[in-house]
């Protein structure tokens, strides 16, 4: 029997989370290189349509793991669905997107099967029959090639943006869909989640901004936010921030850019003293031009910057404000 790669796609409230396509793209690439068979699974209640949607891609089979008790999502419910399924199917590799939901259950699932989970991988390498996953370490300052020890199943999750969801390969014909009715024992699910909600309405919509000046912890003190505001004002742009700045209350939450804040795509994103952690980068990498000022030449933000200024922001920003004003006045 051929080795199987199983992708567990993510659905929330009956909709496929698009980031699942990225995982399938990655899995298709691994399948092409290794010759392993690619299958997918979706877990929930009434997920037949999602399974069909996935079956349109180049996969050999899609399983719909069904039970009314799988909605809403709980880690206990997903464990009850996936653990016996994986024990029975014995896939070689189980791949998932590194979403908040997957972070919530995947470590429990892998540990429950006594196996390792390589979390938040940004890519893979297949050389000489060895499969390794690349992941970021030290907040993106280093990358590591990580291999599995012991036998399968091997679990890995892919970081948002690791592969391109729009490059997922379509199938020649729809793959078969098999429904697996899951038995979730009474009383097994302990958490009782309520419906997701958004906190008070955002007062600022950064998604429409053409120019964004964003500050990070490099700004050091609350009072220094002022110079960033002056620069934003001179440029006619909006001020934004990384999470620690909003956590500290130096700027309101609705100024936060990143995975737990807003996702922006301005013409210009000027990052001042931001290191470039992935959770920030996912929120701004769509900017047309990224200019980063950071005193650390190795800061991960420079990997995605179009223009890198290595230096002290407190030396560079004041003359920059003056030059911008001059240019605008001229």
């Amino acid at each position, binding site marked *: 029997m051929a080795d199987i790669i199983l992708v567990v796609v993510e659905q929330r409230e009956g909709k496929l989370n698009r980031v699942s396509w990225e995982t399938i793209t990655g899995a298709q690439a691994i399948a092409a290189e290794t010759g392993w068979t690619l299958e997918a699974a979706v877990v929930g209640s009434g997920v037949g349509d999602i399974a069909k949607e996935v079956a349109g891609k180049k996969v050999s089979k899609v399983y719909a793991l069904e039970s009314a008790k799988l909605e809403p999502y709980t880690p206990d419910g997903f464990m009850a669905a996936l653990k016996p399924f994986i024990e029975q199917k014995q896939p070689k590799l189980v791949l998932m997107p590194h979403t908040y939901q997957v972070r919530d259950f995947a470590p429990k699932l892998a*540990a429950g099967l006594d196996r390792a989970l390589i979390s938040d991988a940004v890519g893979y390498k297949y050389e000489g029959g060895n499969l390794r996953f690349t992941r970021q370490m030290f907040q*993106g300052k280093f990358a590591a090639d990580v291999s599995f020890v012991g036998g399968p199943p091997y679990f890995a999750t892919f970081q948002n943006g690791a592969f391109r969801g729009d490059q997922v390969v379509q199938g020649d014909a729809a793959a078969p869909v098999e429904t697996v009715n899951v038995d979730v024992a009474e009383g097994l699910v302990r958490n009782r*989640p309520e419906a997701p909600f958004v906190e008070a309405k955002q007062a600022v919509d950064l998604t429409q901004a053409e120019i964004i000046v964003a500050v990070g912890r490099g700004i050091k003190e609350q009072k220094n936010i002022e110079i960033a505001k002056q620069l934003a004002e001179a440029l006619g742009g909006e001020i934004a921030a990384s999470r620690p700045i909003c956590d500290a209350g130096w700027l309101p939450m609705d100024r936060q850019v990143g995975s737990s804040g807003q996702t922006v795509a301005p*013409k210009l994103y000027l990052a001042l003293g931001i290191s470039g952690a992935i959770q920030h980068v996912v929120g701004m990498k769509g900017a047309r031009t990224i200019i980063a000022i950071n005193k650390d030449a190795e800061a991960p933000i420079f990997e995605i910057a179009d223009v890198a*200024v290595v230096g002290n922001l407190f030396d560079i920003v004041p003359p*920059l404000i003056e030059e911008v004003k*001059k240019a605008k006045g001229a």
Partner: protein
Amino acid sequence: MSGYIRIGDSRFETHITRPFPILPPLIYTCRFHGMRSKRSVKCKEPLVKILVCMKQVPQKDAPLKLNEGGTWIREDVSYEVNEPDAYALEEALRQREKHGGEVVVITSGPARAQQVLREALAKGADRAIHLEGDGFVTLDAFNTAKAFATAIKDESFDLIFTGLQSDDYGFAQTGVILAALLGWPHATIIMQIEKSDSGIRVKRELEAGFFQFVDMPLPALLTIQSGINKLRYATLIGIKQAKNKPLKKVSFDEVKLTLGENLQKIEKLYIPQKTKKTEVLEGPPGEIAKKLVDKLRNELRVI
């Protein structure tokens, strides 16, 4: 106590739940800590015993260098507490202030990691456990969770808090696996914790500005997100008192037998390859400012 499953047991289906007041919900004596530790006061609130898992990681601004083998960083850097763990500790202290009880902190790592525990004791934690040894540094999340589970097997906590992930490995797994090993329910990326009739009600952060409340029974494990509260500083009195608070050491040998082989291995650590062409601007600040404005005006046409 009977609430623990055998370490390494992979069934994880054991469900032991306790209602919030672990002691009978009568009026009983609760000990307060620190300055008032010799005094007893009557209080109606239930006591809650919380363990906080904390990790020492390289300081955010520390310039990191690879070791010769390219397998790990050179250890001659400055360290600090992993940021979300600091928030986890703060949350535990606040819960204790509300409900009474005890806050215990635990870490694993070489002698230097004791600093994290000392700081936590100075901020108000009651006692500390240090799994001390170089061997702990290279453990994967599964083994670290096993080591913690072993070290606390004779304790009975109501809540365990961990940071949601560490700034070094960034596994985001240790807490969840620890909950699984103990047979406890867990919830991740927590931004608020309240007591409820049947246990606790927590606010989970979801992606893109969404949140969700979850009711769960105790005991439970929560992974805490940065920003859940405002951090306190240690006071001078706190720092003084910390010296007399109990700090238990557990050696690598004491937990070794409950650990397995690491099931994932770092083959190589390296500086990531750049994927984008980046133009580097250099020179004195005034000159850089001019170059930038020239670019903004003539290339990007935003001014």
